[in-house]
């Protein structure tokens, strides 16, 4: 190794940035243990009350619903993302590969508001799906998709899918093709070589993708807010309401902290799973 030219120049700005972020997170943590003074933005002394308040059925239900929606979304984006990532990595023509890539990642860069609004035009009572079904004479009145958990979950899968595809494609492209060729030459058919070679080797990517999808969905705000319309709430919606409608920032902070701990726990479990897998591999 020896010389490390410009180390200080390279590291200092990044370290400052990390410090700023750490300070912001510390601010949330600190507020989570402060008392709320109704009608004031000032906070009181140390208290556990915020965390106790979270055990009330209203908040506990939202937590459970959030976790359920995150798990559901992660599962379905894995189910839809895997074939797409596989097709992307194994595409033979460059043109088809480019099409798949651009289609798969464009939604990621559209932002949550545009994507959610677009789902509104698809799922609304006079939206595309209901319009098409009515026109075909399959239904008499519009089916209610808006303000339902199904509608929220559908839009969430759409929001999370690109990240899943990127992570799975990264994992799949790292798999040495020679393993698949060896399986073929030893007489395994495509199905068997997929199930016994490709799928197990992509397991780390699957776990990483699922974890990121979970965290990503937990972060969603506009989708449950607009599609859920206040009837399907996630933790993010509560945090915003508590902060900007009731000005109860300490309680909002404590909800955020518990949410963060939950995300960290899920990611930690998946990390342990990945480490187990890697140990089996060696």
């Amino acid at each position: 190794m020896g010389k490390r030219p410009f180390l200080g120049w390279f590291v200092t700005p990044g370290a400052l940035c990390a410090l700023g972020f750490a300070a912001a997170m510390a601010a949330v943590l600190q507020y989570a243990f402060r008392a709320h003074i109704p009608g004031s933005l000032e906070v009181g002394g140390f208290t556990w009350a915020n965390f106790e308040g979270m055990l009330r059925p209203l908040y506990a239900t939202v937590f459970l619903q959030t976790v359920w929606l995150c798990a559901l979304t992660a599962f379905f984006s894995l189910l839809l993302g895997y074939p797409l990532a596989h097709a992307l990595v194994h595409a033979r023509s460059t043109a088809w590969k480019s099409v798949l890539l651009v289609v798969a990642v464009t939604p990621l860069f559209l932002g949550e508001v545009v994507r959610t609004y677009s789902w509104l035009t698809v799922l609304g009572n006079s939206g595309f799906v209901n319009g098409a079904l009515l026109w075909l004479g399959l239904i008499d009145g519009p089916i209610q998709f808006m303000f339902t958990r199904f509608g929220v979950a559908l839009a969430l899968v759409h929001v999370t899918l690109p990240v899943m595809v990127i992570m799975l494609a990264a994992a799949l492209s790292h798999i040495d093709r020679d393993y698949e060729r060896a399986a073929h030459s030893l007489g395994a058919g495509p199905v068997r070589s997929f199930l016994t070679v490709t799928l197990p080797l992509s397991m780390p990517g699957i776990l990483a993708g699922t974890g990121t999808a979970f965290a990503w969905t937990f972060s969603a705000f506009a989708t449950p807010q607009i599609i859920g319309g206040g009837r399907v709430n996630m933790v993010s919606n509560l945090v915003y309401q508590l902060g900007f409608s009731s000005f109860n920032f300490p309680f909002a902070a404590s909800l955020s902290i518990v949410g963060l701990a939950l995300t960290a726990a899920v990611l930690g479990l998946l990390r342990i799973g990945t480490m187990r897998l890697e140990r089996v591999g060696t």
Partner: protein
Amino acid sequence: MTLGPGLRALQVGLRLLVLAIIGFILLPSVVVSIAAFSDRAILTFPPTGFSWRWFEKALTYEDFQQGVRNGAIVMLLASSIALVIGTGAAMAIDRYRFRGRALLQAMLLSPLVVPHFTVGLGFLILAAQIGMARTYTLVVACHVVLVLPFVLRSVTVSLRNLDGRLEQAAASLGASPRRVLFTVTLPLLAPGLAGGWLFAAILSFNEFTASLFVTAQRTQTLPVAMYNYVREYADPSMAALSAIYIAVTALLLVLANRFLGLGRILGVEHGR
């Protein structure tokens, strides 16, 4: 290799499945683009007539115009600052071993998995604690932290693909570390840097949840303005704006793919 009829059917089935998934991804974009040309003030399907009026309304709506201006300021500052910080950090983390390296890497990548509402809330509280108003500085700082992981990833991928022998050759011919950095390393990294900057810029321009917390009326970015519009009005102006958004974003990504190699920047493809 010959395939049995069962396998053939499986292959066709898989292809149809991939097409169906692509259909699912494209559906909302297509539907919203059609709705944008509707002639009525409420969304209905199928549309009853054709008109450009919602594009006109969206482009002349003051909150949207202000949002574009604010968003552009924040985007240019945040993505450029993130590019400088991220390039340095990626070089140090990828090439050097130093104390706190793993911690620095984890801290800089963590905004990827920390919910954006938590990041936004954190910056809002921090600003309140140090007595800072909801200014552009706050929004930019928040965005830098949020887009930095993407710059870091993009630059790291390019660093890994870089042929180190060129730098060694320059150094062995007597170039100073500074000269090697500016005349060899950085030019070779240029596509990765451009890709990283572009990703950071697009993500910053579209960031919503954290922005909702840290922007004020005066500094609100376009996604925040759009969100406020959706909550108040139901006319297709938002559909028109979404259609423009979709067209511009898709165009940028097609160009990025053509000139910078999207797959390589995202790390889903290898080789030179």
